[in-house]
Structure formats: structure tokens, C-alpha cells
């Protein structure tokens, strides 16, 4: 099949996924995985080298943007709670899912590690959307949960980068390059924005791509994963990028239009429905293992930090959600031959289900009703109030 026809089919699927996503109000990433799975199983769509390249860059840019979304101020506030909940939320599911895959399901050690990493994740975006709906994002509890999600993600990305690395000179070079680059990147990127921004040739975008590709090269040479430096780079430049909304918007536009669709579609294309059917029992058990491990780890901590029973269960369920980093981990395992297609299909399905089921349970049974009153639509209310004649304005307040 020639390149242009392949590109047309993949972009057609991406466009279709966008339309469905807008229509149904479901995350485009999830729809792209689903559409990709349909394309792979029923239309014979399969990834080619150039699609793999775009997908790889997509996952790196997506991870960079995820790292850049971290609010350092949020991490600093109540860091004890955030750090302990976030770390346990990563560690316990990682160990539990790895142990189950290795000892019970009979996966080899590398495959079991991938299972552990893929199921240790928490989806920051899912948690954030749910918290905005309940107004919890404006509360202390919400900020702790969000910060804990960032810590969990960091644990996942670090495990992916460290557990499979070859301990050789390349790893040393990678570690040195990271140690050198990370402290310099915030002031350097500030300088790039100050001196080079707002030009047609987009030098600031190229600068970040250069950094991500360079560190990614060293990571891959050390058999680590390019998403590890991408997340760390995002993290250290988060404060700088907070003041560069236009740049982030352009980068996100580029990523979501041309890079991440290939990544998520590919993640779906590689899911085998036959394997899914065969692994149905394992899917259910692994989902329960993930949720149970999060419950055992996170819930007692929420009690220790006096969250209240309902808020504690709610937090635990939200921390059980997963999506992007789970699929990145599973795809890393498949690409490097640590897991086969059946295992990959099982993991991706568990990851997607973990994005849906805990959210539904949390929303249906444990939604903290009281927090809803704290929600203040200031940005909308302000212009209305300004426009009001005196009498109505008084009533508006």
C-alpha cells in the first residue's frame, strides 16, 4: 500500500475518532484506541515504520505536555500527604499486579514488570475532570489528590525508564546528560522564549523537540524509554510554560492533530479481539487486583490524614483510574518484545476499564455532595455582574 493511501486511512480514522469524541463527550484518546482496535481487527489496518515513528514522537510529546501540566506550587503544599498517597498509589498496584502476573498468570518476569507498571498508573486527566464536576478541584482535598496523581505518574514513568535499562556506559551518559540538562532547562527555555519567540520558523518549538529527541536518544541507547526524560523535562519547565499559554496551545495543536492520533490509533490497532476474548477472565482479575491494591494502599492513608470515610473512598477510587501512561507502558512492553500481543491486548483493556469503572463507582456512590456548593463560576459571573444595572446587580450577589 502506498504512503498516501496509508496516510489517508489513518487520518480518516483519526478524524472519525474526533467526530465521535465530540459527539459523545468521551476523551479522544479513548475513542482513538477503540477506533484503532476496530480498524486493526476488521479492516486489516496495521502500523508501518513511518507510523511507528510518528506514534513514538506522539507519546514523547504527550508525556512532555503531561509533565508540563504539573503545578509545582500544588506539589509543595501539603507535600507529605501528596507524596505518601502518590507513592503508595504507585507502589502497591505495581507490586500486586506484577506478583499476580508472575506467580499466578505465569507471565515471565519482564512481562510481569510491564503488567505492574501499566496497572500502577493514575490518570491525572480523568481525576481532574471528575474534580471539576464536583468542585473538588478548588478544595484542599482536591489539590492533594491532584498532586498525588502527579507523584504516581512520576513513579510509573521512572519505573518504565529504570527497570529495563541496561546498566552500561550509555546509561551513565544518559544519567549525566539528565543531571546536566534538568537544572539548566528552566533558565535556558526562558531565554529561548525571551530572545526567539513569536517567529514564523518556531525556534522555541524546535528547541524543545531538540531537547526531547536528544535525551530520548540517550535513554533508548541505554534501553530505557524516551518518555522518562520527556516527563522530567516537562516537569522542570512547567513553571516557565505556565506563562507561555500560546506556545503550549500551538504544541498541543501539533501533537493532537498529527502525532498523538497515530500513537493512540496504533495502541488500538495492536489490540486483538480474539486475544481479548481468550483473556477475559484475566482482564477482570487484573482490574480487581489494581483496584484492590489501590484500596489497600491509599485508603488507610486517607484515613490517617483524616479525609473522612466518604472522601477517602472517593479519593481511592479516583486514584485507581488509568489511561495514557498505562497504554504507553503496555506499548513499550509489546514493542520491546517483553509481552506478546495477547498480553498487550489484556493490559490495554484493563487500563481502559480502569479509566471507566472506578470513575463510575466513585460518581455513583461516593460523590462528595457538600463540595459542590464551593464551586464558583467566577469567570462567567463577573462579566454578567458588570453588565447588570444596580438593582439586578445587587440581587446577583
Amino acid at each position, binding site marked *: 500500500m502506498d504512503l498516501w493511501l496509508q496516510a489517508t486511512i489513518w487520518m480518516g480514522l483519526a478524524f472519525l475518532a474526533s467526530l465521535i*469524541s465530540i459527539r*459523545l*463527550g*468521551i*476523551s*479522544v*484518546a*479513548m475513542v482513538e484506541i477503540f477506533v484503532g482496535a476496530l480498524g486493526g481487527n476488521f479492516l486489516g489496518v496495521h502500523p508501518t515504520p513511518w507510523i511507528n515513528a510518528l506514534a513514538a514522537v506522539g507519546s514523547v510529546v*504527550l508525556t512532555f*505536555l*503531561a509533565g508540563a*501540566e504539573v503545578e509545582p506550587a500544588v506539589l509543595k503544599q501539603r507535600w507529605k500527604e501528596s507524596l505518601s498517597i502518590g507513592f503508595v498509589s504507585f507502589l502497591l498496584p505495581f507490586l500486586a499486579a506484577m506478583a499476580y502476573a508472575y506467580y499466578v498468570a505465569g507471565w515471565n518476569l519482564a512481562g510481569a514488570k510491564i503488567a505492574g507498571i501499566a496497572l500502577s498508573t493514575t*490518570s*491525572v*486527566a*480523568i481525576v*481532574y*475532570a471528575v474534580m*471539576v*464536576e*464536583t468542585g473538588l478541584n478548588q478544595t484542599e482535598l482536591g489539590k492533594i489528590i491532584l498532586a498525588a496523581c502527579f507523584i504516581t505518574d512520576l513513579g510509573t514513568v521512572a519505573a518504565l525508564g529504570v527497570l529495563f535499562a541496561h546498566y552500561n556506559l550509555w546509561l551513565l551518559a544518559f544519567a549525566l546528560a539528565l543531571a546536566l540538562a534538568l537544572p539548566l532547562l528552566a533558565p535556558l527555555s526562558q531565554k529561548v522564549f525571551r530572545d526567539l519567540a513569536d517567529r514564523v520558523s518556531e525556534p522555541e518549538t524546535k528547541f524543545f523537540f531538540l531537547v526531547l529527541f536528544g535525551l530520548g536518544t540517550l535513554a533508548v541507547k541505554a534501553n530505557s524509554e524516551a518518555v522518562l526524560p520527556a516527563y522530567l523535562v516537562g516537569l522542570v519547565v512547567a513553571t516557565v510554560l505556565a506563562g507561555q499559554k500560546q506556545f*503550549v496551545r500551538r504544541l*498541543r495543536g501539533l501533537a493532537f492533530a498529527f502525532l498523538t492520533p497515530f500513537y*493512540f490509533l496504533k495502541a488500538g490497532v495492536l489490540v486483538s479481539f480474539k486475544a481479548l476474548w481468550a483473556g477475559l477472565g484475566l482482564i477482570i482479575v487484573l482490574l480487581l487486583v489494581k483496584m484492590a491494591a489501590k484500596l489497600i494502599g491509599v485508603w488507610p492513608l486517607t484515613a490517617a490524614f483524616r479525609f473522612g470515610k466518604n472522601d477517602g473512598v472517593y479519593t481511592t477510587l479516583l486514584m485507581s*483510574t488509568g*489511561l*495514557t501512561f498505562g497504554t504507553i507502558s503496555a506499548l513499550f512492553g509489546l514493542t520491546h518484545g517483553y509481552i506478546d500481543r495477547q498480553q498487550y491486548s489484556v493490559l490495554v483493556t484493563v487500563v481502559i476499564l480502569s*479509566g*471507566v469503572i472506578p*470513575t463510575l463507582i466513585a460518581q455513583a456512590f461516593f460523590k462528595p*455532595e457538600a463540595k*459542590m*456548593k464551593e*464551586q464558583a*463560576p467566577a*469567570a*462567567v*459571573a463577573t*462579566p*454578567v*455582574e458588570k*453588565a*447588570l*444595572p444596580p*438593582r*439586578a446587580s*445587587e*440581587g*446577583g*450577589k
Partner: protein
Amino acid sequence: MFEKIIVAFDASPQSFAALRAALEIAQKFGATVTTVSVVRLPEYAGTLDEVDENIQRARQYYEQPLRQAAFLAAEKGVEMKSEVLYGHTGERLVEFAAAAGADLIVTGARGLGGVKRYLLGSVSNYLVNHAPCPVLVIRDKELGA
């Protein structure tokens, strides 16, 4: 009889018809009116940006219509507040009405039929079945609803 009236407001012509009806009632009973607009966020979002984008779009979308609504209320001399909530429209309206102790919800009808009604769902139908207070559904013949 009515003190706190809630209007399900999505800036559509039908919701403006509902608002006008609510303002008439509020004027007669000396009630306050709160317009409640519900913004749907992406389910199971992939990135924070996806969520923030919807919030941003909603702010832009509602700015002008809410200003217009405020002028309509001012013309009638009715106290009016505006709230923008996030989530599922019917559910959030019902929750808000219960929390605010509303004694009437006024909503427009889109007049959807058959398949469209099944696919899109009917907010007015949900409200009639789940609201903690009486619900007034405004059918505007001129709008074809």
C-alpha cells in the same frame, strides 16, 4: 408560592423562552431567578488540556447570552443569579435544585422526536422525572418546540 426559581439555561432560543416565562412568574410572586448552565466535560479525559479547553469554551460561549439574560431580568426588576456547573445536564440541575432549595424549575423543550430524542436524551424529561420540585416545561410554538 414561588420564592426560588431555577431556569435550565443553555443559551438556546428555547432556554430564553423558559427564562422569559420564569421572569414573568418571578415578577408576580416576588421570587428570585437563578439560571443554571451545565457544561459537559469529556468523559475519561486523556489530558488536562482537554478538560480546560471545554471550560474555556463554555466561558466564551455563555458570556454574551448571560449578559443578555441579566438585562432581561433587570428590565423586569427581578433578582437574578447565574451559575455555570460542570457534568451531566439533568443530574447537575437536579442536584443544584435540591441544594438550593428551589421550588420551581423552568426549562425549554427542544421538541426532539424519535431517534434524536433517544440519542441526545431529553433534559426536560429527566427533570420531570427526577426534580425535587415542580417543573415547568415551556413549549414555544414559534420555535417549533
